[in-house]
């Protein structure tokens, strides 16, 4: 099997969405879509599995609230009890209202930061990573759909030309 792919380039996100739907309806395999900005609903149109990032976020939040509880219990109750405003300094539960803002903030902090880290790892992004964009215009105002070729080059090119692509080119991939 050849390693040929076709790059179909579009200059409008609505046309791209229609093209993605048509291409999938015609049973061609879309390898990847490159876009300068997130296109709403593109993941569903491409048939990608729903993200599980939300589940991660919930679990990270649970970690955050646990860390905050343990931390405040150690700092304020066990290690160095302090009398602030006459509040009992020997019991976590009786002092709990004072710790709620910290528990809340740590929940958000953990959920947000770990979610970003997870997202970068899943997207295989890290500092100094080389860009994978096949065409620099996808970082500006063009959209690129990569479709795999299975001995149907001619047919595929003419098909993609009907989907409103401004440019269709066949590339030998390594």
């Amino acid at each position, binding site marked *: 099997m050849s390693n040929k792919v076709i790059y179909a380039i579009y200059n409008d996100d609505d046309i791209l969405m229609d093209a993605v739907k048509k291409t999938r309806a015609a049973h061609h395999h879309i390898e990847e879509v490159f876009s300068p900005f997130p296109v709403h*609903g593109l993941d569903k149109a491409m048939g990608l599995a729903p993200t599980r990032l*939300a589940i991660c976020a919930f679990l990270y939040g649970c970690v955050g609230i646990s860390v905050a509880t343990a931390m405040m219990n150690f700092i304020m109750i066990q290690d160095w009890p302090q009398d602030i405003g006459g*509040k009992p300094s020997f019991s976590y539960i009786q002092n709990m*209202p*004072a710790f*709620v803002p910290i528990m809340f903030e740590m929940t958000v902090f953990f959920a947000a930061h770990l979610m970003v880290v997870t997202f970068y790892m899943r997207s295989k992004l890290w500092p100094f990573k080389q860009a994978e964009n096949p065409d620099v215009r996808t970082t500006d105002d063009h959209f690129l759909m990569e479709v795999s070729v299975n001995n149907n080059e001619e047919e595929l090119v003419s098909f993609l030309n009907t989907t409103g692509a401004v440019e269709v080119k066949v590339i030998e991939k390594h």
Partner: protein
Amino acid sequence: MLNKLIVKDMYTFSSKLKTFSIILMAVGLLGIGYGFLTAPKDIHEVETILASESHEGHGEVKHETSEVAGESHAAAENHNEVKDASEHNEHLTHVLHQLQNKPWAALYVACIFFLLVTMGVLAFYAIQQVASAGWSPVLFRVMQGITAYLPWGSVIFFVILVLCGLHFNHMFIWLDPEVVAHDKLIAGKSGYLNFPFWIVRAGIFLIGWNVYRYYSAKNCLAQDESKDDSFYKKNFNISAMFLVFFIVSESIMSWDWILSIDPHWFSTLFGWYVFASFFVSGITTICMVTLYLKSKGYLEHVNTSHIHDLAKFMFGFSVFWTYLWFSQFMLIWYANIPEEITYFITRIQLYNLPFFGAVVMNFLFPILILINTDFKRISWVLVMAGTVILAGHYIDFFNMIMPGTVGDRWFIGVSEIASVLFFLGLFIYTVFTALSKSPLLPKRNPFIEESKHFHY
């Protein structure tokens, strides 16, 4: 396409639901009447009630639920023996007033709750208009239907306020000149807290809200037959003006109708707190009425994305309510100033279950159920969560009003349940009657196509 369902544009109020709402009102009225008739008439009856409570096992069971109630009675019994008769009579009069307040307070809580839920819907609707929201126009007629309860709720509520002013009860102690004469703090506030000014404010607010509701619904209907967007623009303008009027009047309303029940206490975020409570209840009501209409085959253009968005608002504003609930609580708890902390001491000691129960129902339950994306689209989950949220916010209003009116004499009994049933019946009757009067789709709204195709 022969077997395609005929799309129903106009809602017909089913006779089943109509009968149900009338039964609710009838049962409610009977219960409310029973509550008023069985309230003690004088201190002799109170003496009998107190005596039976302290001697029978029944009384002890009740005391176990609230320790302080038990203590105050133990104290009251000591008084009987040690202190002179005048103090005993004072205590009896106090309990008499609380017991006489009970059916009034029950009526008042239910009445203000349904009135403010309607106001929550009206505010939400006005925000949609001003934001030129594209997703919600298919729900406008549902919101207008719900706010059709507003004139009814306003009239009944205003009558209750007037009756308070005519000393039919002792819910607002600052209305009693005898109390003001012996209370320096209340006397100092009497320039603001006096019956004429108070009732005029109430009249202005209620009329202002009703006027907006009337013209907004009228313009929305006129837009259906219009050739241009002029009525839509008119609605945009009056909605913006209404929101300014509303946020000021809402804050003052919360001081007048709820905060002044505890005239010695004050909280600067009380207006927001009350707003959060009825705003989330209003959105929940929109969601539940929409789900009901949808289950009957109406509102063909409302899809799961619209429901999902309403559910997100239910979730978000539940958290917002909790934020304000906790902000109010924590600052007062931390500062521990006697004038302020009494408010929460009363609630935690005498109203422990409803006080913390409201947090479970309005925060823990909705956040755990509605955090899941898929659940926000499942009707039965939303109806269950919505029921808990509405009940929880009724209890929230109960917690705001009861401690200052009936003290430790609270109980969710005949009066309370009957009052809720009556207003629920009236609400269903007026809302669904209004829904049947106009088409469910505002077809000429400039955003209606976007709304029909709204897809999350």
